């Protein structure tokens, strides 16, 4: 008797699930949590909050969104949190390529495969900057000076064994120079230290240095991209982002080096859930506020999903791994 009751209940449950799956693939049934793998105010934080404000403004989601910052351990805290939420599609994790680079250099409680990649929504460029009154007018003279006096030039950046540090090591290799890398807490600090003339250069993203560039504290030499950046408003003295030469044409043979803004779901979620968020993020990209965010932060508006996304991650990881292995930072 009891057995029978349980069976009917089970069939009813299966039927109910079957029906709802047939009607709509997947959609959130409770508040969605945006997990930001950086502290408040950082680049990833702005990225997540921009997406949130656009979704809220245009009512793209009938569930509320809660943003939480889990930026400990250079973002590892957020990714570990994502791992523990396995199978929970109501948690969306925002990050950068540190999702797959961090586990290479530090022993952490998650592996890159523990999370499900959803999309890359933008890529942030890296530039070589010097102080406003620096004697170096182009990348070539900078490299020559570094060659003349090995281990003399100081380049500041955010964190150790992280994106800035990897790039500086790549520059050393590509140009055959030796410099001192000084790790600071954030890109903002690296910008201030450069403007104050305490280091000779930094490799900040555009948005981290634009304030100081406008004020004459810092000056860009070249951008680590295959082609020049998009033309925008002139920033200072009629010069804008598109006037900055690529580092390759300026004499540092690095084809490209970029930081993607990534969106992840925890592992073990259904393809339907991934598709739902891809669709949602597509709508976000079409709004004027997104374009405004891209322009304001001088990022490149790129969108990778599905197969393209996997290729992108694979390539980016391979490049990072090469430097990390060569420097002996790899943990195993």
């Amino acid at each position, binding site marked *: 008797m009891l057995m029978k009751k349980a069976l009917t209940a089970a069939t009813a449950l299966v039927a109910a699930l079957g029906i709802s799956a047939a009607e709509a693939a997947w959609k959130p049934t409770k508040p969605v949590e945006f997990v930001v793998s950086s*502290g*408040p*105010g950082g680049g990833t*934080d*702005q990225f997540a*909050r*921009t997406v949130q*404000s656009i979704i*809220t403004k245009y009512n793209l989601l009938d569930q509320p969104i809660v*943003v*939480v910052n*889990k*930026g*400990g*351990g*250079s973002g*590892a*805290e957020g990714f*570990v949190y994502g791992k523990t939420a396995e199978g929970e599609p109501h948690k969306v994790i925002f990050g950068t390529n540190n999702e797959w680079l961090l586990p290479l*250099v*530090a*022993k*952490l*409680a998650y592996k890159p495969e523990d999370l499900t990649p959803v999309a890359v929504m933008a890529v942030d460029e890296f530039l070589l900057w010097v102080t406003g009154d620096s004697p170096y007018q182009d990348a070539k003279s900078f490299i020559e000076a570094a060659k003349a006096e090995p*281990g003399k030039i*100081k380049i500041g950046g955010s*964190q*150790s*064994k*992280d994106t800035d*540090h990897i790039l500086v090591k790549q520059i050393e290799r590509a140009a055959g120079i030796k410099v*001192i*890398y*000084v*790790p*600071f*807490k*954030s890109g*903002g*600090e690296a*910008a*201030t*230290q450069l*403007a*104050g003339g*305490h*280091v000779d250069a930094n490799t900040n993203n555009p948005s981290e240095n*634009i*304030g*100081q560039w*406008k*004020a004459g*504290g810092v000056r860009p030499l070249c951008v680590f991209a295959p082609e020049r950046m998009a033309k925008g408003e002139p920033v200072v003295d009629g010069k804008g982002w598109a006037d900055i030469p690529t580092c390759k044409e300026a004499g540092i043979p690095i084809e490209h080096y970029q930081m993607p803004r990534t969106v992840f779901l925890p592992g073990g979620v259904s393809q339907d859930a991934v598709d739902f968020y891809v669709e949602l993020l597509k709508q976000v990209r079409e709004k004027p506020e997104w374009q405004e965010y891209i322009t*304001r932060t001088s990022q490149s508006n790129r969108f990778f999903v599905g197969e393209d996304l996997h290729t992108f991650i694979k390539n980016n990881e391979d490049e990072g791994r090469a430097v990390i292995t060569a420097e002996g*930072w790899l943990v195993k």
Partner: protein
Amino acid sequence: MDNIASLMHGFSVALTMHHVLLMMLGVLLGILVGVLPGLGAPNGVTLLMPLTFSMDPISAIILLTSMYWGALFGGSTTSILFNIPGEPSSVATTFDGHPMAKQGRATEALTYAFLSAGFGALAGVVLITLLSGWVAKFALRFSSPEFFAVYFLAFASFIGLGGASPFKTVISIMLGFAFTAVGMDTVSGNVRLTYGFDELLRGISFLVAVIGLFGIGELLLTMEEGLRFEGVKARVSPRKVFETLLTLPRYWVTLLRSALIGCWMGITPGGPTAASFMSYGLAKRFARRPEGFGQGREEGVIAPETADHAAGSSAILPMLALGIPGSATAAVMMGGLMIWGLTPGPMLFIEQKDFVWGLIASMYLGNVVAVVLVLATVPLFASILRVPFAIIGPLILVICVSGAYTVDSAAFDLWMVLIFGVLGYVFKKLDYPIAPMVLAMVLGDKAEDAFRQSVIMSGGDLSVFWSNSLVSSIMSLGILLLAWPLLTRIFRLLRPGRSTGTTTA
């Protein structure tokens, strides 16, 4: 005098009925989130942020900064009443504020705290009004060696405080350094002292530790002492507030010195927490009667509060000019700036004059509004202590636990707060001083980063700490303060006839 004209223009922007109402609303909300368990200033500001997107930037920043002031005052309230610092910078206020409250002098403690905080804030704002151009440029001269020197100065001014045995002080400070080293290290990029606990990746939150050490630790002690809570005797009347107000000018030396320390730490930028500790340390060292500190001395409340708020408000300027937020709340507000279409940075002062001077003017008005409003709440808050301990005790526990949870929304922190509570209790029982550990925890990792960055820059040469006039003068001042107790003793030995029976150092 350009600045004065700009300020007057700023007042004309800020002083409208609409804006004054926004200020009052902001301050009241701020006091609420500062005092209520489970909110706190960063969360309050985050919650309010979406509402401000439809406002013009000036109204929005006035609302948010007023809320920030309100929350800071609210944080001092819980420090004094329950020994729970709402913000890291109000830790030093608990040293004498809470003993005062326990002796039934909560009204006085709160009044002193609010008035001196208001005084400090105004001093900070006056400074940035007069020196706005210079302050931003001055902050640029600071690099890692200078930062280390500033932290060293803060340590030096605090050392030897609270007559505990030097060995116990050393143990306490070393434990603090160990706690602050937990987590990801900036300079090497390695994970330290986590022992496989993923939750320790983000490090041990300072706020969680102090809530445990002070709030829970105190609660355990009170329970042991037979649930006696002397606050019952509190005389609560609005008249007492007014009487206390009249006695404030008596402490003008402390007020002035603390305001100076606060302004200096705000612009250098050592930050409000370092400022409040340093100010407390110096108030004790240079007091005519050093005894009684830690047991409810008025100066022990006035000094840290004045310096905290002076530093907090003068730090706003470098923050806007350099784009580096000084606290979690400030970071959220800066995110807001960008969403309103303003880029923090040196150009803000040139491109957005209305906004910057409107903000500075609103800091004058907002603080005056805040002081008046919080003073009106003193009798209300002070009478909370008259509630029997059987009721207030569990409530304090709720505040501690939910306060610890909201720091990072992590359940693991609930265990941390309990562990630190027990640690605080043990420390008190064995007569180990807690303050040195707290100071090491708040400044330790910054000092370590700054030291290692300096040495990387100099290629291992320690003379980098005497490489220019700025860093050498701060370092020398630090060493002088460190040696002060020794120096006074030597002086006394040299002049034996004079000092007997006249002073105690």
